[in-house]
């Protein structure tokens, strides 16, 4: 009775009375690859599963085990978490459901009462996931609350207002749980917010610190804004960052300056927008920053996943942060100091001749948005976007979900009004058959392309590499598939019947490897047909 044994095991775990997911367990996921305890799998955000049961040899036998259908309208963009037999998913419209990971049957559902007039200015009504710490599940809402739920029952432990939604502040990103704190980023870059990154006490919900992404008067960098433009300078922190516990540093990307496409009112570099921030986790103090796109006028948020990798560069082992940016350049920085080590083009772009020795782009003249439209690559959504890349320590390649597309960029009026769109222009995409996507394998130490697996349209789905030598990915057309991590050759695929706009994960149930993805408004869990292991 294998099944009964599983249930018994679950009960035993539940009775132990210990914190389900203490901080050390997340920090040491390397020794527990059977769970998926944080948004990107591990604090280094490599989104690499050490599970190796599913391989190039047997992946053809991968079969769906169960499907869970969510209610409501919109797009699933969540990364589920899996711990101790339970899968936690943030659904559409601020609902959280805990599922029995063996069957897909719901254990509890929490519905946040969302006000009808909630503002989501500049993005869809989405949620990308939650965080687990101790016996609590944490997630953010479109009306900018951070909510702590009892992981066993879904009951509310506390709710904290993070920002004022009437001014466009909102939460879509999964929070990041570290030792005793919940780190949460904010959305609202098209509403003229002043961006920040917050830390909250995991037990009480009290704010531990706030680190603004736009410096105030007297602070370093405030003079990179004209007049009062810093007040509405945006710099949202709308995607989950990474963490190096040894250095006590959080790595978090920041979004576009406001208004997006009309930079007239904000002369200067507009620090710290379109940048990577290294923030001390214990204090919230900014240790260093690196700005990818000074004075951005194309909405190329640097809200991508900073991937922490240790590799030799010029013969010297370095602690690195790798960053495949929306602006079509791939960067390597020293993650202790922020020192710029590499900046190289990895996708079609027409706006910069290259990156200079200090890491600053060398601009092509006349690529700013105009009233009549100015064709530039990449498009507003960038060479890549929020969907996760993945790094394999085996192949030493970074796998990046790509968007090969250009746009006509328009410049328009921009007048700040609280709670209104503050963008100053727009774009017209060259889409349809003029655009395409791919999963692109880059040598992590050089950014050189190794292979490209092409898809009919620019991707919105993340990827996951595994120790089984595979890379899992999806497509807008509903395909979920596995590629050979070395060659990019497709080895298995399944049509889910809906757009895939989330990141795959992997975990163990009773010692057997599973793979999960969304597809349309459903979750799919796969494992090898019995006997193929």
């Amino acid at each position, binding site marked *: 009775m294998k099944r009964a044994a599983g249930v018994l095991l679950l009960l035993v775990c539940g009775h132990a009375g210990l914190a389900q997911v203490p901080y050390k367990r997340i920090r040491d996921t390397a020794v527990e690859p059977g769970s998926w305890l944080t948004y990107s799998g591990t604090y280094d955000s490599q989104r690499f599963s050490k599970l190796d049961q599913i391989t190039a040899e047997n992946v053809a036998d991968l079969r769906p085990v169960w499907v869970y259908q969510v209610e409501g309208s919109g797009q699933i963009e969540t990364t589920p978490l899996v711990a101790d037999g339970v899968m936690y998913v943030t659904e559409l419209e601020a609902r959280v459901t805990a599922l029995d990971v063996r069957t897909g049957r719901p254990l509890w559902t929490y519905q946040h009462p969302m006000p009808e007039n909630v*503002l989501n200015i500049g993005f869809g009504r989405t949620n990308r996931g939650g965080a687990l710490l101790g016996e609590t599940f944490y997630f953010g809402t479109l009306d900018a609350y951070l909510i702590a739920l009892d992981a066993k029952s879904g009951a509310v432990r506390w709710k904290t207002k993070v920002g004022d939604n009437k001014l466009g502040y909102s939460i879509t990103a999964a929070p990041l749980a570290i030792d005793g704190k919940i780190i949460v980023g904010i959305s609202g870059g098209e509403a003229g917010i002043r961006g920040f990154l917050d830390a909250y006490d995991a037990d009480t919900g009290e704010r531990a610190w706030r680190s603004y992404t736009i410096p105030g008067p007297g602070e370093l960098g405030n003079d990179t804004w004209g007049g009062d433009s810093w007040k509405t300078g945006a710099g949202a922190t709308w995607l989950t960052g990474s963490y190096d516990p040894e250095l006590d540093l959080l790595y978090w990307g920041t979004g576009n300056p406001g208004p997006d*496409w009309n930079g007239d009112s904000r002369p200067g570099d507009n620090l710290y927008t379109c940048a990577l921030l290294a923030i001390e986790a214990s204090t919230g103090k900014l240790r260093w920053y690196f700005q990818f796109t000074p004075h951005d006028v194309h909405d190329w948020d640097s809200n991508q996943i900073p991937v922490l990798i240790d590799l030799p560069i010029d013969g010297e082992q370095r602690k690195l942060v790798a960053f495949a940016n929306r602006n079509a350049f791939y960067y390597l920085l020293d993650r202790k100091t922020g020192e710029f080590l590499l900046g190289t083009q990895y996708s079609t772009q027409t706006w910069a001749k290259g990156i200079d020795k200090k890491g600053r782009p060398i601009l092509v003249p006349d690529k700013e948005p105009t009233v009549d439209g100015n064709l530039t690559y990449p498009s507003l959504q960038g060479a890549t976007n929020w969907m996760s890349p993945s790094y394999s320590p085996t192949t030493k390649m970074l796998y990046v979900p790509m968007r090969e597309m250009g746009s006509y960029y*328009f410049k*328009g009026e921009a007048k700040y009004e609280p709670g209104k769109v503050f*963008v100053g222009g727009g774009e017209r995409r060259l889409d*349809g058959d003029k655009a395409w996507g791919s999963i692109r394998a880059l040598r992590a130490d050089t950014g050189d392309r190794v292979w490209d697996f092409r898809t*009919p349209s620019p991707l919105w789905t993340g990827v996951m590499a595994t120790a089984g030598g595979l890379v899992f990915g999806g497509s807008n057309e509903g395909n979920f598939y596995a590629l050979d991590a070395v060659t990019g050759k497709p080895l298995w695929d399944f049509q889910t019947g809906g757009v895939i706009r989330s990141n795959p994960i992997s975990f163990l149930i009773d010692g057997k490897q599973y793979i999960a993805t969304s597809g349309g408004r459903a979750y799919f869990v796969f494992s090898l047909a019995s006997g193929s292991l």
Partner: protein
Amino acid sequence: MALLGVFALLHGASPGIAQDSRIAHLSEEEIAQGERIYKAQCALCHGIDGAGGTGPSLQRPVLTRARDDAALFSIVQRGVPGRMPGSWLSENETWRVAGYVQALGKVETGDITGDVRRGEQVYKAKGCAGCHIISGEGGSLGPDLTTIGDTRGPHHLRASLVEPGAALPEGLLLITAVTTDGGKIRGLRVNEDVFTIQLRDAANRFHSLRKTNLRELRREFGKTLMPSYQDSLAPRELDDLIAYLASLRRGE
């Protein structure tokens, strides 16, 4: 079609609700600003003169989806889900564009010189119904033309007849597929994903193909199965046919 529906996401968030219409108070200069924005951002689909293209003609006194000023403002800001993207325009800019669009509806086109009844006879005589449906009658290989007059202006209709490849509906793509055993299939793409493609050939037969079983997959951009009627129609027949097609509209 499925390939087109997935991109409109970042545009869903224009909370501006029209209060009182400002169209009546727009100056000539403001209408001219609206025209400039229109030509940059709207003309690709609606035509440089508003006569329609892939999007509907706007040279109509009453727009089906925008019967009053408030609805027109709203549609310029928010678009039509799955069909037309919303804009990032400010309220002022939106009103100026709306003002220009409304002015387009008052333009007397004068482009339709043919006779609708004679055009209907041309349509029947030339076998158009073999590939096109009008009000439920005809073949289904080509696009349904029941309300083609709502979405295509006379310039676009003429181009479709004279040089069909230069005036293709969005997403229409002719494909030639050669299987590994040498079989050749030429047809219109019905759908496509990463690993498979679905086609309808000239005999309107459906083919489901897996890309790994193909030796060649050729995308024939700018081509179509529809022949040019440049030489097979007299100039007056062409004018009459355009008049007939332009008259095919949804009942008001």
